[in-house]
């Protein structure tokens, strides 16, 4: 009893420690000491994995295993450094506790494994050859209970235990090289063989995962079957609730019913789909495999660790997914997912902020004429979320911009001291006035609708005159028809015009509106159309300089490619060159007295988890900013990134990288033949053939995180190798433009 009480106290303390204020939801962050997976050099990881190759592996097999580790460690490292992987947080801890439970009888295996969570809305989980199991937030958001999550983890454990990833790679290589059984196979046969092999591994993971780790774990045996349903419908949001259009409505603006579909598209996913070309067996096959092994007297539980923690983790995942959709510019998904949050958990400020951000960004893309790139075609969407995509398809520019202003203002009124809403409100008005040319006169004012005038109007509209008698039938009928026509027009075409009526007498609203209009009137045509803002500086303008003293360089990238190699990437050299690249950046910045901090996962000490989280947030911010390209949408994490500006003492963050490709010489024989015929060309041809040819690409961006502006966007192609002198020259050029006044 005492023990139980102590456990409960511990649990409540730990829940409090990571409790979220849902109104002020903040992105999920890592906690605790940073695991060496994130900080250890790629080369070391590769060497360690290579040491595990048995002495009996020789020849081609040895080469393949080596290549596998080279490749696998590289891509796992890339994922770990992406800013999307988190550790030590509530969800990772919860998954690791499930793993503890599943492997309680196999501590040796448990010791080799660790689970990290990936900030991805896709419903997926995967294991790597070095013992990492990645669980996507999308999976946590959709599974129905802990037992289902446990079964997925058990499945992934088998993938690791039975070295499925390595085996799959070797089999692929054998098939590609036409070895053994595949010697006489054609392309289709090879594809089928690959698919069959992959499916057999999946079925093995299903069966062994169940048999070895799940069956006697105490979890309900129904979970493996039910989780297959979750996978079957995983492409849909976490719930299927009819979209209520009032979710997007404001006091003065209701979505017209004509914008809504009468029926949404039916769900088409089947369990028995054709899986002849896929890597996984179809759901029906997988279900049957598990059903064979089920204990009919199922006494297991859906929750063994904690239902409340599961619910908490699931809510976290679902909240985070709204943010992830925003980051990815999937505004339709943002709105439907957030609508589901409201339905499931009740309304809160975070949801309102998320919707305001989505409407704002969508309006900016609409004004840019590129919203179609960010929204799925409603005809391609199944289920209830289709309604959202259809509404956006119906929206005209004025509708969407007006809705963005009205929605944001309504939320801002609720949270008047909230800087995030303020920023969005001002931005929404800017877009409304500058991009749509809409002014107060374009809207129905409250004054026109005021009761006195209304009464007077209806008095005048009356057919009966006070002095007796009636107005002629003709005039009355024309007036009636005209009024009906106006009402209809307002309702269907310009329904947005009445949107601001409820706020017409709000001083803040009108002051902001008029102020924006004043700005518009005082601006030149160029400014209005954004020409001066977006005017590209001359690429080699010698006088271009920013006079910035301090920058933060976020996780530089480097890739060495070789077209002549089967794999393309020179993994080890890439790692080496990346370190050199960072050194050069630091050295050159020091030479020109540019205060530079390089934030990189490999340079963070293991106890500096805050820096790790900052870096992840900045990488997410940069990814979204790059996605926006020249569209002037606010980066959705603007409120989350703001504190970092103060913390690092600069608002300028840079993202840079270099890619170098050794080009494969093509058509060697024809070139030699032609040159032999035209023999004076022969020496030049030979010289050209023996001289290695390179193509390289370097990029350097500098962003102002306070407003998302790109101050510098340099792309340099150069048809040479990435030798030091070229890199020095380019990096100096970038940094001097940042520093020089």
């Amino acid at each position, binding site marked *: 009893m005492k023990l139980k009480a102590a456990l409960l106290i511990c649990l409540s303390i730990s829940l409090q420690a990571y409790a979220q204020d849902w109104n002020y939801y903040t992105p999920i962050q890592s906690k605790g000491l940073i695991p060496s997976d994130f900080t250890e050099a790629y080369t070391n990881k590769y060497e360690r994995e290579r040491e595990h190759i048995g002495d009996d592996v020789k020849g081609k097999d040895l080469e393949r295993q080596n290549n596998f580790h080279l490749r696998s460690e590289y891509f796992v490292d890339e994922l770990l450094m992406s800013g999307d992987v988190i550790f030590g947080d509530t969800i990772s801890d919860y998954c690791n506790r499930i793993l503890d439970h599943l492997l309680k009888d196999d501590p040796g295996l448990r010791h080799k494994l660790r689970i990290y969570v990936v900030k991805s809305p896709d419903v997926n989980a995967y294991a790597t050859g070095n013992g990492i199991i990645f669980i996507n937030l999308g999976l946590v958001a959709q599974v129905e209970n802990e037992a289902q999550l446990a079964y997925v983890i058990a499945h992934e454990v088998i993938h690791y235990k039975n070295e499925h990833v390595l085996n799959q790679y070797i089999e692929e290589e054998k098939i590609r090289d036409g070895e053994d059984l595949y010697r006489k196979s054609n392309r289709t046969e090879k594809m089928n063989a690959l698919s069959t092999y992959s499916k057999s591994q999946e079925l093995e993971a299903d069966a062994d995962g169940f048999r070895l780790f799940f069956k006697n774990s105490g979890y309900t045996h129904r979970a493996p079957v039910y989780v297959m349903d979750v996978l079957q419908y995983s492409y849909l949001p976490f719930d299927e609730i009819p979209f209520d259009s009032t979710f997007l409505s404001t006091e003065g603006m209701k979505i017209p019913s004509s914008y809504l579909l009468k029926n949404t598209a039916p769900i088409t996913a089947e369990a028995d789909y054709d899986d002849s070309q896929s890597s996984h067996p179809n759901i029906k096959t997988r279900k049957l495999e598990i059903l064979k092994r089920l204990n009919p007297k199922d006494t297991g539980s859906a929750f063994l660790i904690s239902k409340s923690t599961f619910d908490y983790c699931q809510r976290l995942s679902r909240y985070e997914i709204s943010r992830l959709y925003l980051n990815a510019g999937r505004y339709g998904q943002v709105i439907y997912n957030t609508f589901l949050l409201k339905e499931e958990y009740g309304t809160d400020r975070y949801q309102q902020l998320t919707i305001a951000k989505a409407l704002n960004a969508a309006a900016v893309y609409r004004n840019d004429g590129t919203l179609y790139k960010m929204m799925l075609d409603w005809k391609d969407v199944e289920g209830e979320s289709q309604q959202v995509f259809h509404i956006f398809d119906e929206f005209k520019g004025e509708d969407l911009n007006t809705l963005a202003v009205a929605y944001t203002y309504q939320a801002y009124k609720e949270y008047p001291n909230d800087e995030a809403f303020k920023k969005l409100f001002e931005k929404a008005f800017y877009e409304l006035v500058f991009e749509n040319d809409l002014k107060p006169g374009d809207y129905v004012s409250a004054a026109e609708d005021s009761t006195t005038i209304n009464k007077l109007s209806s008095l005048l509209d009356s057919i009966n005159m006070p002095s007796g008698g009636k107005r002629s039938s003709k005039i009355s009928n024309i007036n009636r028809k005209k009024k009906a026509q106006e009402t209809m027009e307002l309702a269907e075409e310009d329904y947005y015009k009445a949107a601001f009526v409820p706020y017409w007498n709000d001083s803040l609203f009108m002051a902001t509106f008029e102020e924006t209009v004043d700005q518009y009137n005082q601006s030149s045509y160029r400014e209005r159309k954004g020409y001066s803002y977006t005017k590209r500086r001359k690429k080699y303008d010698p*006088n271009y300089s920013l006079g910035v003293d301090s920058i933060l360089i976020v996780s530089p990238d480097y890739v060495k490619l070789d077209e002549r190699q089967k794999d393309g990437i020179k993994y080890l050299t890439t790692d080496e060159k990346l370190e050199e690249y960072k050194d050069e950046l630091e050295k050159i910045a020091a030479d020109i007295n540019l205060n530079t901090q390089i934030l990189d996962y490999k340079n963070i000490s293991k106890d500096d988890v805050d820096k790790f989280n900052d870096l992840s947030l900045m990488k997410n911010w940069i990814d979204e900013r790059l996605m926006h390209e020249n569209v002037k949408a606010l980066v959705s994490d603007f409120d989350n990134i703001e504190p970092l500006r103060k913390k690092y003492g600069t608002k300028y963050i840079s993202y840079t990288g270099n890619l170098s490709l050794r080009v494969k010489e093509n058509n060697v024989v024809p070139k030699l033949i032609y040159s032999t015929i035209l023999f004076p060309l022969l020496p030049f041809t030979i010289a050209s053939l023996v001289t290695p040819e390179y193509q390289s690409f370097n990029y350097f961006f500098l962003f102002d995180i306070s407003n998302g502006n790109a101050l510098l966007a340099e792309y340099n192609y150069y*048809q*040479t190798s990435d030798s030091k002198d070229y890199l*020095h*020259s*380019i990096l100096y*050029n970038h940094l001097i433009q940042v520093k020089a006044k």
Partner: protein
Amino acid sequence: MNRLTYIIVLAIFTSSALLAQNKNVPGYMGKRWNLQYQAYLFPSYINPNTSKVKVDDNELDRSLSVNFQSHITAGYTYSKKMEFLAEYHMSSTNFNPYSDYLYDYDTDQLYYPGLKAKGGAIGIRLYSKHFSPLGSHISFKVGFTKLDVEDLNYSYKNTNGLPQQFTISGGSKVAPTLSVGFGTNRVIKDFFVLSYGLDLSLYTGIFNSASPLSLLDDFGNYVYPSAGNSESNQEAYLQTAEQRYGLMSMVNFKLGFGILL
């Protein structure tokens, strides 16, 4: 002030004055001066590079050799893609002023006379793939070249079979030179610069209609060498030297080494 000094001073002052507006041009790691020594080389198939004389089997020795010119260049990065250029160059070689008719007669000692060329040029280098002064570039230069041609001394056997010395006086010639060059600069240790490329130059003196040394008088009588030092022979002699220089500077591979400041 001679003409060459004037060109060089003008080039340096012009570039410095223009550069005052371009304070943020990076150059290479902030270094904008590119000083180089460049050797211009090209195989010489038909012209001599030595005064060595050999008359054997009625033929002069014209074995394969290499034309060689020394260029000292100063480049100043003006913009990210352009460098102003001032250059001083010098070279010496020999040439063959003799007519093939000569071999029909009793020659005694023949010498390939020497010529020395020096000159200056200004121009620009445009960098196509990288920032000046790195990577591949194309250059355009205009300048003057002065040729100093030494006297031609030779001997001829007189009717007694005894050698008799004759001389045609040398002199100087000056003509404009236009050049286009292609090349690549690489930087070593952020300080040294190594360059290589190809240079095409047009020494405009090559257009002078060089005529062979006059061998015959107006009546068709053989008078050479006794009339060798006539005015027309002197001119023909210098024009032959110009031909030689013109050909020598026409196409050259260049290899350079220098420093960045």
